[in-house]
């Protein structure tokens, strides 16, 4: 039945303000990143050249375009530090996503098996840490992992180790921090996908002689695929550009892209190279981002 969509025209008017806002404060800044990544570094305040002045008219714009340079990208390719940062980011994100799936899936699955009364409570318990500060949650791990912290204390109390181990500034600590921080992002989409699953499908599989494990493998797992995809993207994309967790928990000998952007910007004050790194990061993520965007749009417009 096609009902008249009488809300359509006023609803379009509603788009104007947020649309203009996003164009001005989300899309335009990217043009500035791209332009900056093609500029030369200069000892100035702010530290770059050439200055691109729209008010100076078209001739100045064209002149400025002539001064754009690919030097920053050439630098990124020539210096293996940046290449390794890119590789490390992708590796860390892939490993973290796999770990998150391994840990998040059983939890989400167990949640769907709770009774109707307990499911909202379990859901809330998973969501609450997501609302508490990211920084605080990473900081909480420093308390536990430091040399004379609780983990070493517990391990020594149970005589697992004799001398305290160095947990901080290791990849183990970083993975712990990432898994800890992103776990709700993995559990929620998985739960949402599995919760909608029709229970009679598993009954049917069982009636047809499937063992529980086989029914899981043939029915539950394929049906939870949208959740797996959503959770994986929701974790993978931000982890590639993660800064806080590797900065506070991992060692400083191998950096991730997000850390190099931060370092170039705040420590070396090299805005052009920082922008070039950000562009590289964006290019790395463009595929996953488009996939995520499509998925999100489909999920939200299904009900509309």
């Amino acid at each position, binding site marked *: 039945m096609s009902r008249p969509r009488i809300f359509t025209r006023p609803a379009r008017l509603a788009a104007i303000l947020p649309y203009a806002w996003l164009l001005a404060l989300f899309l335009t*800044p990217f043009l500035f*990143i791209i332009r900056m990544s093609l500029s030369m570094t200069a000892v100035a305040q702010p530290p770059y050249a050439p200055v691109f002045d729209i008010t100076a008219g078209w001739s100045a714009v064209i002149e400025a375009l002539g001064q754009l340079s690919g030097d920053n990208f050439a630098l990124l390719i020539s210096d293996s530090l940046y290449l390794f940062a890119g590789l490390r980011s992708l590796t860390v994100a892939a490993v973290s996503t796999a770990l998150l799936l391994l840990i998040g899936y059983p939890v989400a699955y167990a949640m769907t098996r709770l009774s109707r009364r307990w499911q909202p409570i379990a859901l809330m318990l998973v969501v609450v840490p997501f*609302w*508490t500060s990211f920084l605080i949650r990473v900081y909480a791990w420093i308390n536990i992992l430091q040399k004379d912290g609780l983990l070493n204390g517990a391990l020594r109390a149970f005589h697992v180790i004799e001398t305290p181990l160095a947990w901080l500034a290791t990849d183990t600590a970083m993975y712990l921090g990432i898994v800890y921080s992103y776990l709700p992002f993995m559990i929620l989409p998985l739960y949402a996908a599995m919760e909608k699953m029709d229970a009679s499908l598993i009954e049917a599989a069982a009636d047809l002689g499937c063992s529980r494990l086989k029914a899981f493998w043939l029915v539950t797992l394929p049906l939870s695929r949208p959740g797996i995809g959503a959770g994986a993207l929701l974790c993978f994309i*931000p982890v590639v550009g993660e800064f806080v967790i590797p900065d506070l928990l991992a060692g400083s000998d191998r950096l991730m892209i997000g850390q190099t952007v931060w370092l170039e910007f705040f420590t070396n004050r090299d805005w052009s190279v920082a922008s070039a790194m950000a562009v590289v990061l964006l290019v790395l993520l463009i595929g996953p*981002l488009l996939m995520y965007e499509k998925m*999100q749009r489909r999920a939200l417009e299904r009900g509309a």
Partner: protein
Amino acid sequence: MRRVSLNRLSAFNLTALAAGLAFLYLPIAVLVIYSFNASKLVTVWGGWSLRWYAGLLDDRAMLEAAWMSLRVAFVSATAATVLGTLAAVALSRAGRFAGRTLFSGMLYAPLVLPEVITGLALLLLFVALDAGRGFWTVTLAHTTLTMCFVAVVVQARLGGIDRSLEEAAMDLGCAPARAFIAVTLPLIAPAVAAGWMLAFTLSLDDLVIASFTTGPGATTLPIRIYSEVRLGIRPEINAICTLMIALVSVAIVAASLATKWAGRRDDTPAPL
């Protein structure tokens, strides 16, 4: 017919759930407990004490940062709620319109986009505009980020409500704007409130974007905490973190109770 026990928790399920929740809560619990530790050494238990909370009162820099963060969060969350709700209404009610794909793309991308990119991009814009960096630049940046979260939460809710109610109102002679305010808005109110709270906590929490877009004299709480944490653990940090956790927890519990009391069956998916 053999009923497969779908709602039966196997031992494995129960273990997974318990271990998962313990993993999520244990570090926070440790942090909270140690904020009441009397000992100066963070790792040695010296009995219960409130001395680090008292110490916070003397820490002017920390208090000023907290005040700055609260103001930024309040203003940006309010602006983001208006913008995000409008965006959600447009996406779920306006049908097709020119540039819709770009619009939804811009709206969903910041949800996952690494913050270093968003932060750097916004900073370059502010520099190009020669805007003095401080309270307002951070607030604008946070509004841009958090309006997207509000939009998603509200859009999910808008998709779940019965549109025949809006149509009935208009059949009875309501103008669309009036029908929206009288019918739709009350129905999506829990999601709008949840959106505001999410925006508020996200703003309160953000380190990276604030670091890029802030200027002298506008240090937010996470920036302050981060610089302290880099220098090493101080018990006062445990105390301020505990206060933030308490604030957020109280707000969430209050919000969920309010939704319950309002008697609305809320089908809105978890805010994400």
